[in-house]
């Protein structure tokens, strides 16, 4: 699976995975964490569009609901996917910085 498989949700999906790498979270906690981590504000429609796809792909899984909130956590497959995606990004960043002579 590639990040591009998520279409317009590929960036939100990666942000969600990175947020869940820090521990299980429900929707609002993810939004706040992502905003604090990357400065990106994910709208509720985008967040749940990406969450549904990630769950469908088996990269995250829903945990039992806490009242009306439902936390999610990374699966082993999700961790591997995130690791691979971040390694690709790292190469990309290194390459870009090298070309800029930084």
């Amino acid at each position, binding site marked *: 699976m590639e990040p591009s498989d998520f279409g317009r949700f590929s960036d939100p999906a990666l942000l969600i995975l990175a947020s869940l790498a820090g521990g299980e979270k*429900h*929707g*609002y906690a993810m*939004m706040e964490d992502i905003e604090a981590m990357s400065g990106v504000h994910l*709208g*509720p*429609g*985008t*967040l*749940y*569009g990406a969450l*549904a796809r990630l*769950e*469908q792909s088996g990269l995250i899984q829903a945990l*039992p*609901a*806490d*009242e*009306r*909130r*439902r936390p999610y956590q990374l699966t082993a497959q999700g961790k591997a996917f995130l690791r691979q995606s971040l390694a690709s990004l790292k190469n990309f960043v290194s390459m870009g910085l090298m070309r800029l002579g930084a």
Partner: protein
Amino acid sequence: MRLDRVRPWLTSLYPRAWRERYAVEFDMLLEQCLHSPLDVVDVFLGALDAHLQLLSGENLSWRLMNMQNKLRTTLLMVFAAFIGFIVAGFSLVGMADDSPMIPLMKTNPALAAAWTTIQIGSAVALLAVVVGGIPLALTVVQGALAGGRRGRGLLLVPVVSFLVLVLYLVFLFLVGSGRIQIEGVVKVVGPGAFPAGNRLMMEGLMLVFILGAIASTLAVWKAVSAADSEQETFHAFGRALNVKIYSFAFVPAVIATISMLVMLLATLAWGWLSFSALPQVFAGNFGPWGTSTQIWYIGILVVMAACSGGAVFGLRRGRPRRSQ
């Protein structure tokens, strides 16, 4: 723009299958994060995306996960229908009690057979609901005890309703036996001694029973709806049993529904036979409630038919999803 006003409407933009899976948590999120019109636009786009996904015919997880919710709703519909049927059934017993129908049933075999069918049907339906509901009830109780105060509060509703009913019965007994004196209520010395005050107290019993049944059904519905597990492991006789609690309860739900339909037909036959044998049987105000009237009987039939219909509708709604 008053975003609070549009919030409840926003979730309804999503496809039904999506809502069954995500609506509760999504509503909660919107309560917390809907700050600007841009968020509303984002929800619009999200809903559009969900509809497009549905049209694309993808094998979506939320569509499959929806099956569990459908099956659970089916079971809850059958359970609620059964409770409604019980209320109607007790009304039927109250109607026949102390009336000329009782001696009539001893001499009329067809009438007796119809009444026996109702009794057997009620026993089978009760047994089916109890057997099918045990794994689900255990799961819900475990979840509620381990969960928050709200879950435990929901479980207390049937217990409190039952206690209120018992207390009312004790109160009735004390009044009926003359240990407590109330103006307008007389000591019950035999069948038929039911002046207006006594009947009012008996109607109070019916009210307590019906309100308790409604409150308990709603509480059970809420508690079961909040349960997440589809599969549970139970330990009995040193063995671990894996039970798919909703699938397990489906066959008993079918049996309970068939029993309700049989009882409905038997009640119809019983009323018809009673009226044919003794037309004045519906004309008098017999029994503790004084409800041996045609209107009351038709009301019982309507409630029984509505409950049976609701159960059949629930089963039809859940069956195709179960086989997917």
